[in-house]
């Protein structure tokens, strides 16, 4: 156990060392910053892609065309549908609304529909949404067997393709993030190891003067913390500023895209980067020292 005032010395020593080895300090901080910046950028992209996938999936629905039912029968059916596990929303679409949509859909080419206005060949329907998109197929199956449902439409092929694509996007995205995070950790830790390697002689000298392992380690750990913190802060500020500007420009360019808003998301991201920087800074220097310690 060291005396409290010795901690003052540790901080002083770490500070001096950071300043005097300024070249090494800059090299390390910039590596930390660049690694975390890349990681952060890709996290931003991944989160946005995920938002798109969720957006697409959220629009998937099952449409159940109904036989001609009384209001009571329809109410019972709606209750039954709502009881199916995974169903979050059931909306009744009367045949008149379906017709309106058809008219809109055809837009300028409504003459194709001429003659049908009177008899309206469409049926009443329920539009059913699922809590998670991959339950759409099973919900469709459950709805099909209910009494009063004439036909269930859910675009099997399209839904299955879309789900495959969004699943793939998520998988690839997570895979890339993990790879990138590991790479960033590795590079930062490696950089800190090299910085310590360059000072192995000094560590030896301290040992021969009678410094305990923790006495040697503390200033290095503090240095690692400062390196990680400063690098993380640089990365986080560049990222926050860049994303803020980027979203402003992108929202104008592609307004219909579900951009993830900067706040509070950026705050969490900055916190994440800072934590990573600090944790690897501390662990990296603390662990790399081991090679040069012990008797």
């Amino acid at each position, binding site marked *: 156990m060291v005396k409290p005032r010795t901690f003052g010395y540790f901080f002083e020593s770490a500070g001096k060392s950071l300043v005097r080895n300024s070249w090494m300090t800059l090299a390390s901080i910039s590596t930390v910053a660049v690694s975390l910046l890349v990681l952060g950028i890709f996290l931003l992209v991944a989160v946005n892609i995920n938002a798109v996938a969720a957006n697409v999936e959220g629009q998937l629905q099952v449409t159940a065309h109904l036989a001609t039912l009384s209001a009571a029968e329809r109410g019972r059916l709606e209750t039954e549908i709502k009881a199916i596990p995974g169903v979050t929303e059931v909306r009744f679409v009367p045949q008149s609304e379906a017709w309106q949509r058809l008219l809109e859909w055809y837009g300028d080419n409504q003459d194709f529909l001429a003659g049908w206005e009177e008899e309206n060949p469409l049926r009443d329907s329920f539009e059913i949404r699922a809590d998670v998109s991959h339950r759409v197929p099973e919900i469709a199956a459950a709805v099909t067997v209910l009494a009063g449902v004439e036909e269930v439409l859910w675009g099997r092929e399209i839904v299955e393709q879309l789900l495959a694509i969004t699943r793939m996007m998520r998988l690839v995205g997570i895979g890339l993030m993990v790879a990138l995070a590991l790479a960033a950790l590795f590079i930062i830790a490696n950089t800190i190891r090299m910085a310590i390697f360059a000072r192995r002689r000094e560590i030896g000298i301290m040992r021969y003067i009678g410094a305990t392992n923790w*006495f040697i380690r503390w200033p290095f750990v503090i240095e690692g913390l400062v390196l990680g913190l400063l690098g993380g802060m640089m990365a986080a500020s560049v990222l926050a500023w860049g994303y803020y500007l980027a979203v402003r420009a992108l929202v104008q360019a592609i307004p219909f895209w579900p951009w993830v808003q900067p706040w509070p998301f950026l705050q969490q991201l900055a916190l994440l980067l800072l934590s990573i920087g600090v944790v690897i800074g501390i662990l990296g220097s603390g662990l790399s020292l081991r090679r040069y310690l012990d008797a």
Partner: protein
Amino acid sequence: MLELSNVTKAYPNGSVALNQVNMLVERGEFVFVVGASGAGKTTLTKLLLREEKPTSGKIAINGKNIAKLRPHEVPYLRRSMGVVFQDFRLMPTWTVEENVAFAMVVVETAPRLIRRRVAEVLELVGLANKHAQLPSQLSGGEQQRVALARAIVNKPMLLLADEPTGNLDPETSWGIVKLLLDINSTGTTMLMVTHAKQIVDTLRKRVVELESGCLTRDEKCGIYHG
């Protein structure tokens, strides 16, 4: 105080630096270690500092077998000694003052005491006016005196000095030797490796001679021979 029994040190590459050395040093003694280049003098100090471990034999300091020390006990052994290394081992990015102070910081002396004592010791070795310089800004002899200052700053009970006057002119050397004698007279046991025939011959202290790793001579009131 210090006892070597049948100490042999063979380095991994096969060269035998010490061969069956026996030696007993009492508290407060002043011992010159002499011998040709490569005789094993530095190896002896490295063993005492536990920078190296003996291949065989036993080294006891204050009755404690230092080969048996556990890793976390080693720093405490080292703090009980002051060492002037042959290659100085100064921290290159630290000032003279910081280098000397470090030995006191390690034992957690109060900063106020450190400042006073460091100034005092730098005065003794004649470097008071260089206290804020880096080792790279000093001459060879000045660096050596910084190493000496660091070794004595804690008033250690055992002082190992490996050719502490090797880079010094005769006059400065005598100043340093007088300093070591003073320290010795306050009870510090002194082991001084040296090639300075004149100093050894003048002081007539105990002389231990190594020849190719073997202890060939151990005389009270000895001379350098040569």
